[in-house]
């Protein structure tokens, strides 16, 4: 009797030692299912990529190209971190809810409670993994055309081409994966520019009012009223067309909308008690703006920024439609749809998959933004 109990315990110890080696299992056994499945999922994805893309992973060492090394690094990092996080979090005792939590931790807890937001986060991580691992995920190159184009063009989705081929016999899946890099990078730069400028200028205008407000807002009005198409076409025509250029121009033309939102918020905030109090205390204006006002308008700004992230990807698609975006063969989701649109009636897959990629990305950003907004703003916590 006691022997068998001791044996059970022994087995349990052996099992948990073994379990510790499988990422996510300790958490699963512990009842933390989400963490467990996430880590398990991450690790198995990485292993699947390693197994299925084995020849290309090996090619890293012979090809020596940067994107292969990046992919290789991602793969290694993914495996190591899945395992490492699993071990680390298994070793850490569970913290009872609501005890000694920092403001950020509360926000994170709130965020986790919002299922859609978490879904968005997963989608985003997945997208970035796919982007980074792109060379291992597909046997084709993004600009690689079919051997005989006439025989390989517009092939419907099949095992060899999961998303079919386009008009040059290029693999659509490959182009969607590689297109993600461009499309994802676009959003960040432009949004970083527009949010920073927009918040500062909007807050300053709203806070000071009067002549400062008038001047700044007239400037904002000018930019908003300026036909962006004129600006884009000129800049693209004058300078050699490059993605960075388009992104910067977008960033510089989009900030006024953020500024207006921020100003609108600040206009009502500055009449509120805490700002009046800060003023009465004689605090300096920059201090009031950055310590008391800006944190209170972060919610709308974050919403604007997440919407902005997706927006830029959408604008890029629109520019592609007008034939004003990145030159081929570089794929962006936008120019893939624009290029495939003449085939829409008979080859739906050429436009549908990049279109869905855009939708998924923009949805993911928005879900995350919403989640952040709900969790960061104390007023919204239930």
């Amino acid at each position, binding site marked *: 009797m006691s022997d068998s109990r001791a044996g059970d315990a022994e087995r349990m110890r052996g099992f948990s030692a073994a379990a510790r080696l499988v990422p996510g299992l300790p958490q699963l056994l512990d009842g933390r299912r989400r963490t467990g499945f996430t880590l398990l999922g991450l690790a198995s994805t990485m292993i699947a990529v390693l197994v299925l893309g084995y020849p290309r992973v090996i090619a890293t060492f012979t090809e020596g190209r940067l994107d292969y090394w990046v992919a290789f690094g991602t793969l290694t990092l993914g495996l190591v971190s899945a395992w490492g996080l699993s071990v680390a979090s298994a070793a850490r005792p569970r913290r009872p809810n609501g005890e000694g939590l920092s403001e950020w931790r509360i926000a994170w807890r709130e965020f986790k409670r919002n*299922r*859609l937001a978490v879904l968005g986060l997963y989608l985003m991580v997945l997208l970035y993994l796919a982007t980074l691992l792109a060379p291992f995920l597909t046997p084709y190159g993004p600009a690689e055309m079919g051997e005989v184009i006439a025989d390989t063009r517009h092939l419907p989705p099949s095992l060899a081409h999961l998303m079919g081929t386009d008009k040059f016999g290029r693999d659509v899946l490959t182009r969607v994966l590689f297109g993600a890099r461009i499309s994802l990078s676009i959003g960040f730069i432009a949004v970083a520019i527009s949010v920073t400028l927009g918040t500062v200028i909007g807050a300053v205008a709203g806070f000071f009012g009067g002549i400062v407000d008038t001047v700044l807002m007239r400037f904002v009005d000018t930019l908003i009223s*300026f036909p962006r*198409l*004129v600006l884009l076409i000129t800049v693209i025509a004058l300078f050699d067309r490059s993605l960075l250029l388009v992104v910067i121009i977008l960033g510089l033309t989009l900030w006024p909308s953020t500024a207006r939102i921020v100003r609108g918020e600040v206009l009502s905030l500055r009449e509120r008690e805490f700002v009046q109090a800060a003023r009465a205390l004689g605090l300096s204006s920059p201090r009031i703006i950055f310590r008391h006002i800006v944190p209170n308008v972060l919610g709308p700004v974050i919403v604007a920024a997440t919407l902005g992230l997706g927006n830029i990807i959408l604008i890029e698609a629109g520019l592609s439609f007008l034939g004003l975006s990145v030159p081929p063969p570089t794929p962006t989701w936008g120019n893939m749809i624009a290029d495939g649109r003449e085939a829409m009636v008979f080859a739906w897959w050429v436009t549908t998959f990049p279109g869905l990629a855009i939708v998924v990305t923009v*949805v993911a950003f928005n879900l995350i933004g919403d989640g952040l*907004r709900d969790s960061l703003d104390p007023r*919204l916590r239930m």
Partner: protein
Amino acid sequence: MTRYIARRLLQAIPLLLGILTLVFIFMHAAPGDPTAMYMHPSVAPEILEQMKQNWGLDQPLHIQYVRWMKSFLTGDFGYSLTQHRPVAAILAERIPNTLLLSGTALVLIFAIGIAVGIVQAVRQYSLLDNVLTLVALFIYSMPTFWLALILMLIFAFKVYQIDWWPDFLRFPASDMTSVGHDAMSGWGRFADRLRHLTLPAVSLGIASAASVARYTRSSMLEVIHQDYIRTARAKGLPERTVILKHALKNALLPIITLLGLYLPFLFSGAVLVEIVFSWPGMGRTIFDAIMQRDYPLVMATSFVFATMVVIGNLVADILYAAVDPRIRYE
């Protein structure tokens, strides 16, 4: 208030002149000129030179600018170099078309957007909220021209191959009216216009409606959690009154600023939608004008766009003051 409006309008004048000057500089800095469409080895280069001379494009830039500004200030927009008719005639034809399209889209945006947003806020985190959020997001996340093409493919093409599909849900893919429009009865004409308007207006408006819904939801949630709403509830007012009367009014405040923001957005979206549905509006006009370097037409269309935006902003600000008594305009 009247003084405020007058002052804003006065302030808009230098703003518009500034924008026009910038557009002028930008357009002339861009390579290319309007003779490109005539270029061909069978057309003598002297003819091209002569055209430039006729159009005054051989003059130094500052002289061209002064000349244009002079005629503009006297209310003359000049002649279109590509359409060979007065720019004013083109504007008179195109502006109503664009206003019809974007006005319809604007109504769709706010009607659908606010309604959906309220429902979502009231039922925060419910299944309905989540489903609506996802559907709205999905639509919002589609590139306008792709959405337009898909709608067209389905409602102007595929449904014609489905026998049982009701006729009134089959739509034309292009133009503002049918070929036989003039022969129709009054009611028939209206229905015909409406049918032609449906797909473009939906394509143009639905994405923004989704984003209005998002803003409305956020804004409503913020308001709902504030003390005075709790007080109103505590007083035992019916939920409907609390939401529609007390919460909505305050929640609409940031939404109304969107009105001003959506105008330029609608116009740039209109370029794509007007091209896809061959809607003869301002968006297509400015795009073609820029592409063909039809300078007088570009200047005039830019002026119209900028004016509409300025007016949109002004309207937004006035509405802003109307709903929020805390904001004072001196």
